[in-house]
């Protein structure tokens, strides 16, 4: 009897953890996708991402085939999102606590998303080019 009760509680908690991990990120994708953070000026595409307690928007979409720069904005950022890693362009840096970091992404090809992570790996963002 006792054991079944504990088993049921355990199952409920496992579901709870699942919701915390997966449910949350789904919501973020929806809000992130609609964000207006891509701008084209003088033939250069600028993508802006805010870094503090994670990255927002978490998913951006931009156009492939034009020179692209990524602007990462920090504002009193002390957490992991300040130590940014973008493997596809070999970028690794701990950003200043408040400021803007401009990262050259080259000319991205279609279908090759760019992914950024914080050094501990618990925050990430991605940019789709299509």
């Amino acid at each position, binding site marked *: 009897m006792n054991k079944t009760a504990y088993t049921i509680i355990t199952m409920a908690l*496992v579901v*709870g953890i699942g919701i*915390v991990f997966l449910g949350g990120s789904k919501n973020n994708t929806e809000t992130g996708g609609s964000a207006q953070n891509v701008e084209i000026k003088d033939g250069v595409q600028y993508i802006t991402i805010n870094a503090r307690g994670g990255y927002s928007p978490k998913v951006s979409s931009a156009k492939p085939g034009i020179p692209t720069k990524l602007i990462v904005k920090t504002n009193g*950022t*002390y957490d992991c999102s300040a130590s940014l890693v973008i493997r596809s362009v070999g970028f690794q840096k*701990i950003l*200043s*606590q408040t400021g803007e970091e401009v990262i050259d992404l080259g000319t991205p090809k279609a279908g090759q998303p760019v992914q950024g992570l914080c050094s501990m*790996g618990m925050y990430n963002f991605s940019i789709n080019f299509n």
Partner: protein
Amino acid sequence: MKTYTFHVSGTHCASCKIFIEDTLNEQGFIKNARVNLQRETVEIETDSDEDPEALTHILTEKIKSNGYKLSVEKSSTEKQSNDVIWKAIPIGLSFLILFFLLQKSEILNLGIGGQTTPVTSFIIGLIASVSSCLAIVGGLVLSLSAKVSQDNVSDTKTFLLFHTGRLVSFAVLGGVLGAVGSAIGINFTFTAILGLLASMVMLLLGLNLVGVFAKNKVALPAGIFNFFRKIEHKTLTPLIIGFATFFLPCGFTQSMQISALGSGSFMSGLLIMLAFALGTLPMLVLLSFGSASFAHGKHAPLFFKSAGVVVIGLGLFALLAGLAGLGIINPLFNI
């Protein structure tokens, strides 16, 4: 000449048999001691007139410091361990949910603008000690503390050494960063690998605390446990682990290191890192001394197993995040 059979607990490995037999055979009043690892018993031939109960106490004194214990009855914690694990899993999971909810709640994302002074870095330390950094640093502290207390090593001394080592090395390394300036870069891959190593230790100790190894006798190579045993007794070990936490991947620690780098002098770098370490101290002290007081209390078996569940959860989180950080796997989650 009488022959007794006692139960022995704490035997992890094949070499434990040899150690116990050697120690017991050294006692003058014992003619022959034989350990049976499968049944966890030791058979003793003795010409002592003590009654069995007293005999187990005398002999336990000899091997206690290595974590073994003799008893006439099968140890009671062993009997109820099955029930305990069913309580421990929900307790551990509840703590994990609370922890991750706290991370999601964005309470911890308050921005602190302006110049980094020792006061702000102390506050950042306070925040960091309940942030996702706790998954690695706190998880490591919790697992090591629980393990040390479980093995009955003089835990207070070990913890004091750990915290002293941590404070001193943060201060000194912060000072060095301030003095040297931008010359040393803190290597991302290095910290990530150290983080993976820490998460592996957490998983191993977590499984050990839950009792997977003890129960199923999944005999870890004897060497690993002897290694743990040995390093637990060294004075230097807790100091070194305290030192190593400087390099563990934690975003807050890293931004503090950058502030120390930019601070321009030995003293200012030292103050920033020391204040930061002091800020993280209350939570870590709570973890280590809290686990010690639980470990010596009535609910020790429940505490060890719950702590084991928490540590396994945090270890898995740190492991997956670390692998993602290194670009080995895709990030699975976004806290």
